[in-house]
Every structure is written in C-alpha cells, then in structure tokens.
C-alpha cells in the first residue's frame, strides 16, 4: 500500500504493509525513534504525536488512516540549541526521570496548552490522563506544563 505523509515538514511517499501502524512508519521506516512504544495496549501515551494538529496515539492509528496527513513528532518541535518552550520547561522543572514517557508527555502537553483556555493544575492533571509515567514523576511534569503555559 502506498501512503504519502508529511512528517516534520518533509513529504514522504512510502510503500507499507496494510497492517502497519503510524508509529511503525515513524520509527522503522523514517527512523524517528523519539516516538516511543510503551505498552502495546493503547494506554500509555508514550507514542503521542500530532496528526493534522491533534494529539493522537500513533500506536493506534493505521498508516492508511494517516495517508495525506501532516504529522509532527518530538523531533519536529525544537532543536538541542533551540528547545521548544515545553521542552525547556521540562528541563528546567526536572520533569523527567527515566525519560521514556517524555516525548509523549511533551507532545500531549503542547496540544493541551494549545487547546485549553484557563489551563490550571487540575486541568493539566486531567488533560494528561492518557499519558503514564512509570517513574510516577507527575508533580514536576505538571509544574513544567504550567510553566510552559505561561510562555507559549
């Protein structure tokens, strides 16, 4: 099956199996391994990317569903010397321990800030319901999202 999609601003045309997932396209075909797979049961949110502007679990989207879509991954939001405000806030607030959930957390948090008016602590905690941190480092993650909210 032929799919075309734009990832982090670059257009790609790929021949993929019909049962390939978007996250597999990103990691295995495009070698964008910043997007993680944490659970295989669509619960952990480590694989969250933006598809046409919305945060989605890329492990629960078929490549065919993403045909024609504009996808942004963690690699597409900033650079080591030019971090996205959310990345900078995660670093500043020590919002990661092992770091495995961080790409999904950051992509989810950016969408949350972009789409929520009056984002307070409770709204951040509810908004990140779909992202699990097995280090249980939630307090600093919430602090980071609130800090980024103020500068985004």
């Amino acid at each position, binding site marked *: 099956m032929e799919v075309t999609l734009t990832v982090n601003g670059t257009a790609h045309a790929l021949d993929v199996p019909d049962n390939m997932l978007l996250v597999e396209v990103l990691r295995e075909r495009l070698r964008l391994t910043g997007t993680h797979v944490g659970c295989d049961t669509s*619960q952990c949110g480590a694989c969250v990317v933006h598809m046409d502007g919305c945060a989605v679990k890329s492990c629960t989207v078929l490549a065919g569903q993403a045909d024609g879509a504009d996808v942004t991954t963690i690699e597409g939001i900033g650079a080591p010397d030019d971090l996205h405000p959310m990345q900078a806030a995660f670093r500043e607030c020590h919002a990661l321990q092992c770091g495995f959930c961080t790409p999904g957390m950051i992509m989810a948090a950016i969408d949350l800030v972009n789409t929520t008016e009056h984002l307070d602590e409770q709204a951040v905690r509810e908004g990140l319901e779909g992202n699990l941190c097995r280090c249980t480092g939630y307090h600093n993650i919430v602090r980071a999202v609130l800090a980024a909210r103020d500068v985004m």
Partner: protein
Amino acid sequence: MYRFNYQKAASVAEAASLLDGAEDGVYLAGGMTLIPTLKARLASPTDVIDLGAIDGMADISVGDTVRIGALARHAEVAASAAVRGAIPALADLAGLIGDAHVRNRGTLGGSVANSDPAADYPAAVLALNAVVHTDRRAIAADDFFKGLFQTALEPGEIVKSLAFRIPRRAAYAKFPNPASRYAIVGVMVADFGAAEVRVGVTGAGACAFRSAELERALAGGLAAEALADVTIPYDGFNSDIHASAEYRGHLVAVMARRAVAAAIS
C-alpha cells in the same frame, strides 16, 4: 496484528460494497476499539474498510433534535457550542470518554455500533431517546442495544448519524475505572417535562439499558429525595475484578443521585 487488506471508502455506498465483497470484512471508524483489538489478535478480519474519509458524516446540527454525524469525534462533540447549548450533558459526557488522545480519534458512530458494555454514549442514546439513522433505516434507541457487543445493526449496515431529543434538563454521572476511564457505572438522567424522565445506565449490564426502578422513582419529577430509598436489583449485572454485581447495583443508585443533583443544580 494478523495481515488484512486495508481499504478506504469514499462513500457509504462504496463502503457497503467493499464489505459485501470481502470474505470477512469489518468497518473502521476512529479505531479506538478495533485497532487495539487487532493488535491483541482478538480479531482477524480479512479486510478493514475505513469509513474515515467519507465526506459529510461528521456534521453537527441543532434543530428539533441534536443531530450528530457518526464520524464526529468525541473531542468535537465535547467542544461543540451547538451541542453544549442544546444538551450540555451530552457535551459533558463526550468530554469524559477515555483520555484526550482517544477523544481526538474515537467517534460517536463507532461507540454506539460497538455496544461496549462500559461505553459512555449508549447511556445518552437511551436517556435522550435518540434515533439511530443508518444507510438502510431509522432505529429507535429502545430497539438498538441488544446485548454484549450486540446491536440491531444488520451485517454491513452503517450508522450515518444520531438524532438526540433535547430534554429540559439532563446530566450524566460516571464512576470511571481509574486506569481506562471506561464506566464501571454511568447513569444519564433526562427530564423532558410532562412527567417524562428517562434514565440510561451503562457499565452495569451486558449492554446499556433503561432503569425502570429509577424512571418510576423520578416520574414525579427530578428531586434528590425521590431516590433516597431506591434500590436497584443487580441480578445479572457484570461482575469482574473491578466491581462485583452487588457493588455495581449500589453504584447505579449513587450515580443516579449525583446525576439528578447535577441536573437540578
């Protein structure tokens, strides 16, 4: 995942034709249930027919009813000013489904066609006496849910939209599973005036149902004290690691009281 053929339909008619020509085809809407099911190898269809690209199936309009296209995503319903203006409880319910990423993909039509015993929308379909419009006919809410993952839909039939009656007031209260956010029990109470109160319950039984006990108790109008002594027979309720049948019966009454309190506040 097992192998399957993925096909994207451009119209309802094309989707029906593709399914008809498949050995063992299945429709895909948002995929929030189907894709995890495929990943777990709990289903092995030969063909997955994607409805997601069909135009005009995600529209929301408000007239005598609130009409929502089957492909409307939960996040769109939750954020719809039109839905919130007419039936705020329905927008609230949509905003409680799963998590934000699931709400960005999951659809109304997929939810009701799946008839998951713990899905939220079926409670609203029953309480708001919705009509399910398909590519073949209109199905009344009371005739739609038939059992565990069973509905009145015939093989190949496609849900196109739902029309929800607009109540005077309504509210949905849910006791979510803390991990999945599926309803361990969810209750929607809708007051249409003229002594007509409908109560839809999800999570408790094999599929969503109306509660005769709660509707009888509320027939005199929505009042917190009307449910003070109500008891719910729990024979046949779901019993699993999350909650026993008896506990679910207790939760139905508690959620009903919370829904009534929210509706009249």
